[in-house]
């Protein structure tokens, strides 16, 4: 059963090219196990938010807080793109914390992948791709439901708003993935991330009111927050103007920078940890 060098090289050609896809396949198959949770979350969460805000909170907001190109816009229109973006961020927070710990430590799934021809950077790519799939499903579903509620100025903007949510979710998620991959022992770090990163980000990123409403010394939270940048892009797409003074291109650049930095860092950490 001897093999020539060429035969050995040929046998690994598939994994060398498509290893990332094989990993994504595994992740999608895993998600099927908790598909109903994903679906209930994806549909239930926008319904709750839009009902609560659209019929509840918005009825008190008589004074407009944001303008479109043709004058003031409703509170629902203002808040919906931010809610879509936060749906993306929530998926990132779901998938890039405990699942990473599961992969490295609790179930050691990444070590199993690592013993196959698949390389650590491909593990990152496949894992991220699967999460991106779930994230896009969530943000698209949210945006589609929002159209039914009249939450988006232009119904066709649903795609752009969902895309902004995906970009924002990844800009938050990829650096989080890199951080989670460095954790060798769960000492409550994830609880800290949720309490002191995720929650403040949600509250201080101009999600429910324009960022400029905050005192200047608190506004920096928005500037570094992927959620704010994604919300601003979504608002510009939905009703033609974002309340902040930044051009949309800048928001995109900030988010892409965070994505690339997180991606590069995550690949490095995975390689270091799996191939040490």
């Amino acid at each position: 059963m001897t093999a020539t060098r060429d035969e050995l090289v040929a046998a690994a050609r598939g994994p060398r090219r498509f290893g990332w896809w094989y990993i994504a396949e595994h992740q999608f198959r895993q998600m099927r196990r908790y598909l109903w949770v994903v679906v209930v979350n994806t549909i239930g969460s926008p319904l709750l938010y839009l009902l609560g805000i659209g019929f509840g909170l918005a009825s008190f907001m008589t004074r407009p807080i944001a303008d479109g190109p043709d004058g003031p816009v409703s509170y629902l229109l203002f808040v919906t793109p931010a809610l879509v973006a936060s749906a993306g961020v929530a998926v990132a927070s779901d998938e890039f914390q405990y699942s990473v710990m599961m992969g490295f430590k609790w179930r050691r799934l990444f070590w199993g992948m690592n013993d196959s021809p698949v390389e650590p950077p491909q593990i990152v790519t496949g894992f991220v791709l699967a999460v991106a799939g779930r994230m896009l499903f969530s943000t698209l579903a949210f945006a589609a439901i929002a159209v039914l509620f009249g939450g988006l100025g232009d119904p066709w903007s649903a795609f752009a708003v969902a895309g902004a949510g995906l970009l924002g979710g990844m800009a938050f998620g990829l650096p989080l993935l890199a951080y989670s991959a460095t954790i060798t022992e769960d000492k409550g770090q994830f609880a800290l991330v949720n309490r002191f990163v995720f929650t403040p980000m949600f509250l201080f990123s101009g999600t429910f009111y324009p960022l400029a409403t905050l005192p200047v010394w608190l506004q920096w939270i928005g500037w570094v927050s992927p959620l704010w940048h994604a919300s601003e892009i979504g608002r510009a797409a939905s009703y033609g103007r974002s309340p902040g003074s930044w051009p949309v291109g800048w928001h995109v650049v900030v988010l892409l920078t965070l994505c690339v930095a997180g991606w590069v860092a995550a690949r490095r950490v995975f390689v270091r940890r799996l191939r040490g």
Partner: protein
Amino acid sequence: MTVISARGLVKRYGDLAAVDGIDFEVPAGESFGLLGPNGAGKSTTMRMVGAVSARTAGDLTVLGLDPDTHGPEIRAQLGVVPQEDNLDLELRARDNLVVYGRYFGISRAECLRRADELLAFAQLEDKATAKVDDLSGGMKRRLTIARALINTPRVLMLDEPTTGLDPQARHVLWDRLFRLKERGTTLVLTTHYMDEAEQLCDRLIVVDHGRIMAEGSPAELIRRYSTREVVELRFGTDRNADAGARLESAADRVEVLPDRVLLYTDDGERLLEHVAREGMRPTTSLVRRSSLEDVFLRLTGRSLIE
């Protein structure tokens, strides 16, 4: 044909040399073992051979390829059974084999076909649709072995394959591994159980502190480093050392352990008679064949399981 060749293999973590210059060769079809206590460098060696950990120094080829440059090509030909199971507990048994087979670029249809074959080989056909979480420890271990065979590997690497299993589960597993050996699969395994090494290995190296202490078949090693028989006597913790000293001249070699005295000799019964003639009264006495444990004790002055 040589499947694995290591020359002066070294792995250093900072100042610590986990593997400190070891040489070995494994020909195709051989069942090769690395025997040594925990922390001896066995798993580190396996990781280097498995092309998932770069060597610090030395030469290493697996199937004629350098793991530093041809990791995926080497791993495509290996089956790896890690020390700790890393099955996907969320998936069913068959799905575990299928998703793993896909990592090797094997088509889904072919993965399904092989999965059924391997489940039968692992005596798990009736568990194909069971969730992995519901399987016993021995079943999980067999499923891990089945998973490692999904790519019909040229070399199957097993790191402590039966650690933590009950005796019956160990025997079932040994039987499966023995069948693979009969089929000509090259096996490389680490263990700190000498009975496992004796059962499964054609040849082995005894490793301690990252170095090779001895190399040979189990029978050769026993012949070279021990006597034919061993007499085990227990006199009580306080009296073992004195008894050992008194019997020094009657045996080829004496080892005093905290709980017993080991007397190495070619004729155990005769030595026991001598003990009786001396008027010594051990609380228990036993004559047994020398084992790899004795080899290890001789080579390192320590027991394998401490």
